[in-house]
């Protein structure tokens, strides 16, 4: 079996069946099939962009169900729903739940700040200070700590050294001499401080960004099921941080929490892992369960169609036909014990193409060929 597939021969520009989404290339991110799911995402995002209130949404699916792909897809402004005929460009961040519970809050905090990028933070603080005459006073009104307010204020300073010292103190690493230079008593130290810093940045990015942000910051937190590895001493501060972040940002924030679980409808077990306090704040939920065969076929048709070469003029399912693809989508889940999800569909379709490409110079993949394949060892 040769692994190199001649995609143009199959009427395809490139391999459409990637196992992990390509986040860097916009053109390769395509939403195929699963219209119900896309509609639910659009509803949540439309509500986010048309209303100031913060939203906590929980997205649950099996592993490989497409949550990460959805976050990459919607993180491009072209793919967001338009609101009042306007294409808005909110700040969107995609972060992963830290895999280790030790220091998880600090890790997530740093990841969020680094995803925003320091230069963007400085730019938005400078915009804010240009617009608001009493900037420092306003920041103090938003914060429960004068020191935190001052640190954020100093991020807009013209002196690069001051900005650098303020950034360091915001990460909790300020020395005594730098604190004296910055005229602050303490650096950011507690989880409440961290939640407050992010919450002020959310407000600034929503209201004082140059682009038409739709007054919104959307944070996608992936792989939240990793919390199962946290001990209670690690889990409690982490979930409290998420709660505090949400509670201290009553406006402008959308938190999209991605959770993989093989039984996505088992809300009781999901609540045990995430905690009641977090679940009680969930305003919207999207559950993707196992795909039906018809959904899988629609997905495949759209994937093939999107990646077709201009000169392609054969049947839409080529190199499959209706019978062989139905057989594949019945046989592979049964033999492997795995459900139909976008990831397994991609894997099985790719395997079928790989295993038959040398025999099929021009013909379609037949039912007999699918019947001869073994999916029992597929993970």
């Amino acid at each position, binding site marked *: 079996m040769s692994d190199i597939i001649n995609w143009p021969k199959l009427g395809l520009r490139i391999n459409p069946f990637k196992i992990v989404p390509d986040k860097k290339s916009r053109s390769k991110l395509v939403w195929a099939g699963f219209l119900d799911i896309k509609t639910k995402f659009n509803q949540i995002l439309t509500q986010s962009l048309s209303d100031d209130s913060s939203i906590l949404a929980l997205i649950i699916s099996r592993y490989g169900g497409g949550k990460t792909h959805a976050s990459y897809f919607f993180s491009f402004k072209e793919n967001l729903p338009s609101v009042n005929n306007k294409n808005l460009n909110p700040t969107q961040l995609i972060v992963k739940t830290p895999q280790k519970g030790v220091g998880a809050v600090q890790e997530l905090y740093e990841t969020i700040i680094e995803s925003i990028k320091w230069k963007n933070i400085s730019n938005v603080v400078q915009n804010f200070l240009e617009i608001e005459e009493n900037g420092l006073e306003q920041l103090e009104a938003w914060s429960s700590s004068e020191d935190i307010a001052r640190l954020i204020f100093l991020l807009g300073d013209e002196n690069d050294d001051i900005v650098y010292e303020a950034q360091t103190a915001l990460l909790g690493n300020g020395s005594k001499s730098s604190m004296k230079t910055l005229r602050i008593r303490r650096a950011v130290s507690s989880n409440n401080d961290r939640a407050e810093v992010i919450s002020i940045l959310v407000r600034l990015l929503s209201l004082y960004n140059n682009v038409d942000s739709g007054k919104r910051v959307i944070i996608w937190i992936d792989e939240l099921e990793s919390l199962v*590895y946290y001990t209670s001493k690690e889990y409690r501060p982490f979930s409290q941080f998420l709660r505090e972040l949400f509670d201290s940002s009553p406006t402008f924030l959308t938190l999209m929490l991605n959770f993989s679980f093989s039984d996505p409808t*088992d809300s009781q077990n999901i609540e045990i892992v995430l905690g009641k306090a977090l679940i009680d704040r969930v305003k919207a939920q999207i559950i993707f369960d196992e795909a039906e065969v018809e959904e899988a076929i629609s997905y495949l048709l759209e994937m093939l169609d999107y990646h077709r070469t201009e000169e392609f003029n054969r049947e839409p399912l080529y190199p499959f036909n209706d019978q062989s693809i139905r057989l594949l989508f019945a046989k592979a889940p049964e033999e492997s014990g795995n459900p139909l999800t976008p990831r397994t569909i991609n894997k099985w379709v790719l395997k079928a193409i790989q295993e038959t490409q040398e025999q099929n110079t021009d013909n379609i993949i037949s039912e007999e060929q699918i019947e001869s394949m073994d999916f029992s060892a597929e993970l």
Partner: protein
Amino acid sequence: MGNKRLEIFIDTNTFKHLAEVEINRKPSYQKIFEIFNVHTCSAVKKEFGYKAHIRDPRHLILSKKLSGNSAKVLRTRKMKKLETLWLSRFYKKAIENGKDESERNLVCILIELIIERKITRGILVTDDYTARTSFLDAIYKSFMLGEIWNSADLLIHLYLITSSVSYKSMEIALRDLIAIESMSWKKYKRTGDREQDAKIKMIGDYVNRLKEIKILKENYV
């Protein structure tokens, strides 16, 4: 009726896990020592004293406990004989030092205690699911030695028979126990599941069992 205490036999992995989980701000094995007749073997004791300078401090404290009177550290002079003539019928791998040593030794000690009528049955507590499925389950089934539990089962039973541990602290202890990296989750793994899926199901199952006991205790007068 007298105050009967359950005879339990604990292997190395289980002790490690119990040392990493607290109940009422103390290592969970303290409560186990209080409530049960705890047996172990010299292989387990040796393991906790080995390379003391690089061990987790919690293991060193446990090592001292095992040197005291908290648990009965047993040995049998018939160990070699039992292992080669009897256990090898079930244990399909080569009998080597360090490989399933504590499980092998504990089951030999247990069979000797039962044959010599020192105890009637014993609960073997092990978190090594592979050792269970490869030979322990078969031995227990053939000789009716009692039952095999994991450390979460032990905590569940502890909650049933003691009033000094609250529901909340036991729930936290169970969650912490299942979060431990080496804690076996394989029993809960179905085809297509990842480790996280199995662990989530395991936590859910034990929390539900704990809730059932709480209801029972609330209604038990």
